[in-house]
């Protein structure tokens, strides 16, 4: 299993898609940091405050959509990262179907459960790496700016501990979203189908159904993801979800969709 996992991780790391996604994310993050450092004065440059005063429309809009406190900028950067992770998870599996390499690899590893689990874990691992790299650059950018200006108000041990714990949860969430996305790609047998499922879900359930049928709100993915990441009661459409409840539901979704993908993959003919 270790060999298989290692091979799958290497396969993903060599994909140009990953390279592009990483460049895009890092470029975006660096741009945000530079713009905000340029706009900040000595009272807002310290990492703690700077992360709360960014007013880029993109990050604000993303934060509002998630039901996250709009001043929590780390979470909004994470949202952009999660979009990349969803694409990465989908293409990790979908590209194999497109290239037809599923046939080839199955003649080397016929145990399908083992193969798909390794692929989903590889997608999760690489997604988590992407998430960590992007956030280290983001937080590191602010910290360097603040250090250079000598303004580090509010960046004591508590700040860093809370930030690291939050990012650890965020990293786990990135892994779970990659598994979900990879499972969708397995069910749909290509990247486009997986992204279509995501898009359809976000539009049909989260944007249309949930505001109309409010009883569904506690079950929607983004609200539970935000509650898990923020680890605090998070509200949307009059419903509040705690961090614990969000965690349970996210894990449940990953298990159910992952199991459906496994069952489908083991029973389906590869032609």
């Amino acid at each position, binding site marked *: 299993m270790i*060999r298989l996992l290692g*091979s799958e991780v*290497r*396969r993903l790391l060599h*994909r140009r898609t990953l390279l592009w996604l990483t460049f895009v994310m890092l470029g975006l993050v660096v741009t945000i940091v530079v713009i905000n450092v340029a706009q900040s004065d000595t009272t807002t440059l310290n990492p703690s405050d700077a992360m709360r005063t960014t007013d880029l429309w993109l990050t604000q809009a993303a934060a509002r959509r998630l039901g996250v406190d709009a001043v929590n900028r780390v979470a909004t950067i994470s949202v952009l990262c999660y979009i990349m992770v969803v694409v990465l998870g989908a293409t990790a599996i979908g590209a194999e179907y497109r290239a037809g390499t599923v046939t080839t690899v199955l003649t*080397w590893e*016929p*145990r399908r459960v083992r193969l798909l689990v390794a692929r989903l874990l590889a997608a999760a691992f690489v997604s988590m790496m992407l998430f960590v790299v992007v956030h280290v650059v983001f937080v590191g950018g602010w910290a360097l700016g603040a250090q250079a200006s000598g303004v580090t108000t509010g960046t004591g041990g508590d700040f860093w501990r809370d930030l690291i714990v939050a990012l650890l949860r965020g990293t786990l969430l990135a892994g779970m979203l990659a598994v979900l996305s990879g499972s969708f790609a397995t069910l749909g047998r290509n990247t486009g189908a997986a992204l279509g499922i995501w898009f359809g879900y976000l539009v049909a359930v989260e944007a249309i159904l949930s505001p109309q049928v409010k009883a569904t709100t506690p079950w929607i993915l983004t609200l539970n993801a935000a509650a898990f990441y923020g680890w605090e009661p998070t509200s949307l459409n009059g419903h509040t979800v705690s961090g614990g409840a969000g965690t349970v539901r996210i894990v449940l979704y990953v298990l159910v969709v992952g199991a459906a993908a496994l069952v489908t993959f083991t029973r389906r003919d590869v*032609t």
Partner: protein
Amino acid sequence: MPVIELVGLRKVYRRGRTVAIGGLDLDVPEGGVFGFLGPNGSGKTTTIRCILGLVRASGGQATVLGAAVPRELARVKGDVGSIVETPSLFPSFSARRNLELLGALEGIGPKTVAAMLERVGLGGREDDRVRAYSLGMRQRLGLAAALLKDPALLILDEPANGLDPAGIKEFRDLIRSMGAEGRTVFVSSHLLGEVQQMCDRVAIIARGSLVTQGSVAEVLSLGHRARLLVRVPEPGVATAVLGRAGIVASAYDPATDLLYVDLPPDAGARVTEVLARDGIYLSELRTEEVDLETVFLELTGGASDPAPRAEPGAVPGPDAST
């Protein structure tokens, strides 16, 4: 013990409305090259996919190297190399990277990969992206991937697709050397001339069922009896002369200008005597060759897989002349 054993293998689609394999029985003995022949749509590739566990059989049993498919296939995966149709590898990766990633699954290192790429003639192009490879080069790469595990059993589905004549000959030599080394090579192909030259045993299937299997000589013996081919200046007259002597000339091929005389190969002297008595002197007398293609077409009802053979036409009348 057979290396591959199929007992009543069935595969149906659309809830049984389409039968791809209808109860196929097959024994592939250990060692040598085994040819698997059948017209298009006869179930060759589906059978191979069933053997490799890619397609779930609807019924029957398949055993590979003593392991039941698909349950125990993992036990023998290191001993089975395969190509199924056009080899599928990542087009944006180089040949070397593709093989190194596959090899890593079995602990095969870069040196073995480099040696294998050299062996199949891709040395010097190993760092090119697979996307830039021709079909023939992809076939070679697929063969390298199949050989990487140093398998005891090699399963090749139409492996000569896209190869040029030199590549086909090279490939044939390679396959024969594999068989001579004691490996078992199970190869499906529609290049019947190639199969006849490189295989020790063959099986012919049609409509998902076995038509026959055996050594090449045994299968060839199932064809029609070889006839005598005679070239004479006036085939119409010669036919009449032979007819008066009780000898049947059943066909005439204007393309080759040959009469097909229904006598066994050892009756050439009698034909010569009868014709010479009437002043007809033949310029050629030989035995018809019954090849695998002929037998294949006869046994499968002239299905469309190989290029149809030009059949001799009707025998010309006595007044016909060349």
